[in-house]
């Protein structure tokens, strides 16, 4: 498969590292000069931009966390004047407020390039027609893939998520050759196609690029068998850029190449914060090297994985990360939407009739993730009329949908029935087999 940017994607290791160092130094100087948060944080840790003389010195710089992003909501971490920001995206945060990220014109160009590289790594060429079922909007998936497809020179169908039956008609008539979206939605799409009597064997797909939520090797087999295509994993998060931070190659499908000319990846011990030796499993941390509007320095992703420096048969010299196996926090990803139990809790707190004794149950029904919120009833919320209780359930469910953007089924349960271990409720039951 052709590599989109041969000079950079196959840069010899030594040259790659000297490029990384140069870009890292520039980034550190820029954030120190332009972002008060970083300046104060570096000063507090007794480190200055001049101290960064090798890539190893990165370990001296303090981490950035989601909490820091929230504390600087919405724009305080931007390193350029708003005048230079051409795009804003957001993802859900740990409480009511989302995490806001910005892009300059050049950031959008970089992102488009990295998405174009990703699509190419997944088998894409200018001859392809790409059916982009990632959601368009504040979520980075839709527009990220869209711009990448255009940069590649492919034809993109901006179909977005939802309206599944129409999507299948489009697939039959427009004959797209590549498919992009979240794996759980794509499997749902396959099911609906099946109900409509449409077989993917008769469609034109050769590959699909799926991400924005964790998925397993068994899901890969299912996707590949049901959709008659090669399923490629893509990774990204809006804080770091969006999709296109790393991508599997069509040749190996074994680990995701991180675009190291734009990002430095580290693996740390999530408890001590110490950098772990190559190959060990821990929390993935990213530093952006070229971003202008929203640079991130040692951003803790909370994703648990390991890195693999072995050369790859595809020819790329960029290091690979293994598929993330879990999270070091309690974030759930439901149909591509990040959900923290604490967000649900704040919604419940704003419903005066109920006690915030709740439990989240995540299931995969068919191929779609479902979220059920069990809420204990109390004497204040109890009524002898069914309609009042149902009204309460739908009020909570509407609020969750409004604040978090995720549909949840709310179920009232008897008091003290939610399991409490060591005095603390077990908040999440995830029955999905990913």
């Amino acid at each position, binding site marked *: 498969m052709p590599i989109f940017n041969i000079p950079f994607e196959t840069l010899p290791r030594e040259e790659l590292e000297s490029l990384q160092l140069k870009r890292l130094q520039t980034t550190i100087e820029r954030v120190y000069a332009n972002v008060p948060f970083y300046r104060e944080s570096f000063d507090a840790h007794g480190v200055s931009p001049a101290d960064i003389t090798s890539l190893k010195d990165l370990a001296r710089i303090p981490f950035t966390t989601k909490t820091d992003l929230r504390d600087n909501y919405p724009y305080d971490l931007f390193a350029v004047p708003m005048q230079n920001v051409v795009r804003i995206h957001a993802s859900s945060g740990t409480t009511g407020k989302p995490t806001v990220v910005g892009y300059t014109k050049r950031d959008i160009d970089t992102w488009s390039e990295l998405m174009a590289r990703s699509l190419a790594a997944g088998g894409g060429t200018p001859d392809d027609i790409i059916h982009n079922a990632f959601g368009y909007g504040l979520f980075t998936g839709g527009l990220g893939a869209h711009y990448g497809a255009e940069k590649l020179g492919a034809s993109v169908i901006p179909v977005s998520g939802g309206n599944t039956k129409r999507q299948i008609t489009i697939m039959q008539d427009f004959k797209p050759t590549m498919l992009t979206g979240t794996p759980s939605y794509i499997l749902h799409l396959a099911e609906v196609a099946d109900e409509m009597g449409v077989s993917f064997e008769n469609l034109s797909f050769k590959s699909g690029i799926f991400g924005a939520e964790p998925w397993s090797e068994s899901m890969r087999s299912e996707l590949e068998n049901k959709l008659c295509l090669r399923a490629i994993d893509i990774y990204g998060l809006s804080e770091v850029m969006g999709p296109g931070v790393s991508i599997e190659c069509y040749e190996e499908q074994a680990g995701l190449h991180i675009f190291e000319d734009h990002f430095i990846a580290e693996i740390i011990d999530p408890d001590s914060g110490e950098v772990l030796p190559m190959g060990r499993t821990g929390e993935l941390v990213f530093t952006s090297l070229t971003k202008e509007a929203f640079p991130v320095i040692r951003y803790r992703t909370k994703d648990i994985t390991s890195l693999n420096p072995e050369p790859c048969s595809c020819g790329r010299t960029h290091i690979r990360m293994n598929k993330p196996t879990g999270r070091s926090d309690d974030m759930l990803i439901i149909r591509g939407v990040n959900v923290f139990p604490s967000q649900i809790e704040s919604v419940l707190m704003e419903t005066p009739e109920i006690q915030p004794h709740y439990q989240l149950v995540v299931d995969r029904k068919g191929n779609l993730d479902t979220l059920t919120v069990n809420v204990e*009833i*109390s*004497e204040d919320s*109890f*009524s*002898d*009329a*069914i309609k009042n*209780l*149902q009204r309460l359930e739908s009020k909570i469910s509407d609020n969750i949908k409004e604040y978090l953007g995720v549909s949840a089924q709310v*179920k*009232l*349960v*008897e*008091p*003290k*029935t939610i399991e409490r271990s060591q005095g603390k409720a077990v908040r999440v039951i995830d029955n999905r087999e990913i």
Partner: protein
Amino acid sequence: MLAEQISIFLENKEGRLAEVTAILSDAGVNIRALSLADTTDFGILRMIVSDNVKAEAALKKEGFTVGKTKIVAVEVTDEPGGLNQVLDPLCANDINVEYMYAFANPKCQNAIMIFRFDDSDRALEILKEKNIKVIAGEEVYNL
């Protein structure tokens, strides 16, 4: 003239109803009438019992959510049109029935209907005007 009903929140789980009846049995409380309203997830058990205070205390002790509601108990004659005689005047006055259930009066041939109206006080006035027999709480509990 209003009587009191107790209602209990029940999850749709095997054996929950039997637990309630066992608790009442142990407390020596007799059930006069009951109705169970249910959805796919939960149900509301509504009951007229011989001793509300005792029943409520025993159920709460076992962790049940118990509510109390004022209802109207009406005696309905056991003949065609018996219930209609009660409902007609209420309907004419825009009184809504939230729910209702019935049981046979052990002391005569008549039925007793338990009504939850959206406006109980107004309903009582109308029933009184029409000379329809409303049974007092104490009388219902001790039938």
